[in-house]
């Protein structure tokens, strides 16, 4: 069966007056139906840019994209805007990071959900309002019949994120894009929202592309993980394999830099910082910070993704040494 979403050799370049930033370089991965895929990386790794280019939400004309993004067999990048509008919100839902700025402050919560519903479905006003109440109940908002009449500023951060989720799932999308959905929330509220997403996924059988920098969330939510660094895919594997036997030095370093509640011992950290991305990335972008780096790491043809074991892909030529180190 064809995958739900297939990103093929995606490239995004941000053009500025004096220079260009090569934000996403040759990224390919798939999301299958009913599966949660984590897109992990630090700031500047291109994870949000990848996520946004799926719905063509990048600021034009500064961003140039290459490659293809197939959703149920159709190329979203080549799709005319008019047709794309029927995909956004209907077949693909999206949750943004900041619930404060992604809801319109001058409309009631109910108005915003009803607008989404009536744009994509043949549904009367009354029925749409009733459905909005139903949706708010589904995402766990207490006394939803009162909440639909409130404005976003009357709700807390966690509530607003629930409203965002309600809007995103209102048309039963096949795929949900979640761009750092809990980063702006406190841990106890984050826990509530993560549970909600898990429940909705089970009930609706949709695929989720979860963009996050938090490895704990990845471990609990995802089936498979795509690790990005400086706009390149470093490793793709099932969540168990990523944590138990990473085959890329960056993944390994990332996991070792996270302080954990159940583990004591000194953190390793990764020396150095992200490379400048104003030039196209050639070879492995991590080589300057990598203890295993050799001359071959600077060559493009050596650092392509290869399948090191079934379903486990790594771009590291030293993947066997990573295993042993």
């Amino acid at each position, binding site marked *: 069966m064809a995958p739900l979403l297939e990103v093929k050799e995606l490239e995004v370049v941000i053009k500025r007056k004096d220079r260009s930033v090569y934000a996403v370089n040759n990224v390919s991965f798939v999301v299958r139906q009913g599966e949660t895929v984590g897109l992990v990386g630090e700031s500047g790794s291109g994870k949000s840019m990848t996520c946004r280019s799926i719905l063509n939400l990048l600021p034009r004309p500064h961003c140039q994209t290459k490659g293809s993004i197939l959703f149920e067999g159709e190329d979203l990048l080549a799709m005319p805007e008019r047709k794309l509008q029927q995909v956004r919100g209907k077949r693909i839902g999206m949750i943004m990071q900041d619930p404060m700025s992604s809801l319109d402050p001058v409309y009631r919560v109910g108005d915003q959900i009803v607008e989404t519903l009536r744009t994509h479905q043949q549904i009367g006003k009354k029925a749409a309002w009733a459905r909005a109440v139903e949706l708010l109940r589904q995402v766990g908002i207490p006394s939803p019949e009162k909440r639909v009449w409130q404005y976003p500023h009357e709700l807390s951060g966690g509530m607003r994120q629930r409203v965002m989720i309600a809007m995103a799932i209102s048309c039963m999308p096949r795929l949900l894009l979640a761009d750092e959905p809990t980063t702006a929330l406190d*841990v106890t509220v984050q*826990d509530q929202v993560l549970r909600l997403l898990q429940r909705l996924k089970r009930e609706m059988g949709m695929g989720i592309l979860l963009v996050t920098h938090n490895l704990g969330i990845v471990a609990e939510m995802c089936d498979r993980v795509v690790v990005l660094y400086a706009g390149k895919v470093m490793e793709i594997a099932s969540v168990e394999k990523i944590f138990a036997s990473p085959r890329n030095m960056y993944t390994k370093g990332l996991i070792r830099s*996270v302080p954990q509640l159940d583990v004591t011992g000194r*953190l390793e950290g990764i020396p150095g910082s992200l490379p400048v991305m104003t030039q196209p990335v050639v070879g492995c972008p991590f080589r300057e910070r990598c203890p295993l780096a050799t001359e071959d790491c600077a060559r493009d043809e050596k650092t392509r993704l290869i399948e090191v074991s079934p379903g486990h892909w790594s771009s590291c030529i030293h993947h066997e040494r990573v295993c042993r180190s």
Partner: protein
Amino acid sequence: MLKVEHLHKVYEKKESWLDRLFQKGSVRLYAVNDVSLEVREGETLGLVGESGCGKTTLCRTLMRLYEPTSGTISFLGEDITHTKASNLRKLYKDMQMVFQDPYSSLNPKMTVKEMLAEAIRFHGICRTEKETDEYIARLLQKVGLNPGDAEKYPKAFSGGQRQRIAIARAIAVKPRLLIADEPVSALDVSVQAQILNLLEELQRDLKLTMIFISHDLSVVKYISNRVAVMYLGRIVETGTTDEVFHQPSHPYTQALLSAVPRMQPGRERERITLEGDPPSPFEMNRGCHFYSRCPKRMEVCRTVTPDLFPLSETHQARCHLAKEQ
């Protein structure tokens, strides 16, 4: 070294003519509510809590950046609760602070050298120009920067490097107490680990005492000897790191710990889910502040404010249940 007793910081919104019209009266916000704590020489005290719990207000009041409403603060045996502004200069020789956001806490129009030299001159650390230059070079090396970076402006540095500069500026005057307010929250995990290790090293080498504020429990566990958990302006539990993380006694600490996503895929963690969000901090006087969300609440909690009950010599919890244990 630092002793705080019954510290309050109350913000009051005065009654305006509009409020009088609607008969609203003045409102009070207890940002810091009856906080008592002690910091001993050479230790790191971690202060944890969710957003809005008063941890930042508390540390800024300790620094005397805010005027306390009532209570006493004594530092090195001296009462500094109402020290005059002219004497604060002497105080800041021994007490320094690192702020959360390394992008706004450094003056963009000053070079690193100018920034450090200003602090050094102000407190009379070095006598001659040459001595100052050498001292700055040593400082930069100590925080892991290049002595050649001294002539650069902040914009030339990444977030992690900026935080190193902020730390260099704080330790330049050889303080005895360092207050770090979320120093790693704005950084990526790989860089976060570097800064945590740097702070740990400096503390050991310079025999610093540190108050470390964070909303991230794993980070606090990594760096602290003792921990205080705050909720809505009050300290709800305090103890050694071991006691708080392995035998949490306040229901809030227990819930907070259980809400942190763990990096172990496939393992179901025991979750204590809190309902709702923290209540508004306005006019909270009677009973336990955690009453509205507590899974173990009893009738007595609604009306009687629990004291900090001692559980061991070092461990205390503000909960009626702790008394029975």
